[in-house]
């Protein structure tokens, strides 16, 4: 090991690695291990019965489905936002830039109550949909809107710096070689933005899956229809059922972890394809 370490150019490898592992263990791994340990008190049959109960499965569908859709929506519109903020100058730009971070800062319960107030049948926006029989608050659509709201900053903030660093010369070069605007975007700019977009998508998705505070007010929480998985966990805790709660949490953990791994894999693949070393 010593010879391997001494060959490195930067000193302090052992220290930093030790620190990284120690810190990660304390902050992330120990609590997660506690979840797994608690779950491990169940037999496999009990575990399977808990995590595949129809009501729980319905909640996975909503939680993961709505989170994926919300992250996808945020990726498209977050890119557009970041693009406007970086490429154009207009009055109030700084204000809008600061507004993007608000969903981060707002307590999620406040966000949930505000969104419910706006999208309820008698709310500012909800009242225009109500006559057409479209309900937003207290439905799955409401869940989606809350998740889009809380996930917005992730894509904007990951794409923005990359876009700022992007030299206009690339685009000028593309243009001088005869590419039209669409080709310049699709063949030159987009591939360079892709890794940041994927990261933003993954962050927005991960945040949405775990979100409780804001969703719970707007969801309506009807069994089999609009119950999110974190609510299932809370209801189990209300029955003092720690083990059942951790069993469902374990499933969420593994699915999220697997999805994030896939997303990171995609990112690495995209990076290789565009010929950039990571």
């Amino acid at each position: 090991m010593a010879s391997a370490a001494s060959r490195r150019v930067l000193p302090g490898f052992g220290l930093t690695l030790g620190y990284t592992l120690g810190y990660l263990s304390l902050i992330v791994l120990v609590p997660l291990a506690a979840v797994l340990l608690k779950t491990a008190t169940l037999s496999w049959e009990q575990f399977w019965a808990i995590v595949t109960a129809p009501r729980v499965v319905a909640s996975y569908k909503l939680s993961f489905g709505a989170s994926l859709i919300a992250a996808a929506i945020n990726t498209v519109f977050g890119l557009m936002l970041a693009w406007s903020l970086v490429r154009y100058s207009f009055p109030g730009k700084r204000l809008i830039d600061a507004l993007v971070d608000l969903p981060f800062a707002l307590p999620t319960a406040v966000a949930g109550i505000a969104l419910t107030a706006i999208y309820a049948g008698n709310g500012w926006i909800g009242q225009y949909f109500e006559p057409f029989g479209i309900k937003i608050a207290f439905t799955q659509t409401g869940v989606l809107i809350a998740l889009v709201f809380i996930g917005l900053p992730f894509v904007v903030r990951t794409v923005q710096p990359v876009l700022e660093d992007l030299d206009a010369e690339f685009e000028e070069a593309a243009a001088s070689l005869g590419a039209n605007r669409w080709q310049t975007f699709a063949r030159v700019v987009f591939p360079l933005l892709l890794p940041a977009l994927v990261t933003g998508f993954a962050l927005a998705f991960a945040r949405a899956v775990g979100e409780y505070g804001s969703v719970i007010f707007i969801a309506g929480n009807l069994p089999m229809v609009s119950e999110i998985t974190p609510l299932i966990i809370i209801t189990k805790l209300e029955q003092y059922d720690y083990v059942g709660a951790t069993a469902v949490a374990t499933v969420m953990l593994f699915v999220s972890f697997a999805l994030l791994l896939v997303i990171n894999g995609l990112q690495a693949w995209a990076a290789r394809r565009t010929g950039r070393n990571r």
Partner: protein
Amino acid sequence: MLPRILSWAGFLLAFTFISAFTAYAQTTILNVSYDVSRELYKDINTAFIAEWRKKTGQTVAVNQSHGGSSKQALSVVSGLEADVVTMNQAPDIDILAENGLVAKDWRSKFPNGAAPYTSVSVFLVRKGNPKNIKDWGDLAKPGIQVIVPNPKTSGNGRYTYLAAWGYAQQSLGGASAARDFVTKLFANVPVFDGGGRGATTTFTQRDVGDALVTFENEARLIAVEFGADKFDIVYPSISVEAPAPAAINDKVVDKKQTREIAQAYLSFLYSPEGQAIIAKHDFRPRDEAVLRANQAKFPSIKTFDVEALIGPWAEVRKTHFADGGIYDQIVVK
């Protein structure tokens, strides 16, 4: 390395301070309570502190912690150092007894099953009662929307469910009739809010639903908050009695040597002064004289006791509200 040594030193220092403070009898107690009792206990604490000073010359402090009842109970099980717990349903104290924090016979430690006050589930309807909702039967009719907090996460919701069950069992006869009735009623619920206050918001602010079923104290608070010209309170023919039990956390008071204060604090709730404060906050006092003095606020209503009519709480919890229990069966279609 140095920062690590420093942080350990800081940790030990903090630890030493904390243990030094706990070594002798304290004069601060913590009351861990449920969500909507915040204002009540603020008044109770002020009155109790004055009373205790008058009696003993000692100045005590009472800290409050509020949150969803079951969540609060779990916090205490996990080590939140509550000297006394004041909850809104017996199972939240039973769980403390199961964990050895509270005496098994906590119900007999204070009068009235250790519940210094009660409330009842009532209906709140829109002004003039346009859907003519008079009793439980009207809530189960087709086309009526009822707002009830989620019985899986809220004591308020559980009492509503049990009140409807008790009504049906008595007036329609038998458990299977009760089950059919409750199924119909809960099919009329368009939104399940996490707690009583959330359901209030949905009904009053979002204009969802024809009736809100909630505790009398919450219904009266809404009437005051929004003006009597917006909502009417409807008293059904029969309702559930929802006693709010209190207990001493033996483990903590023995360690902190605060048993005497804790005992006096809970006893104070039963004193005429305590009962008057309770009535002021729209909870039904136990004291006959105080109840009579507030007759206008608390119309007489026939009530039933959950344990007497439906069964012991432990059993009710298991057959009705546990995962896969009757409640789950009727709402999961």
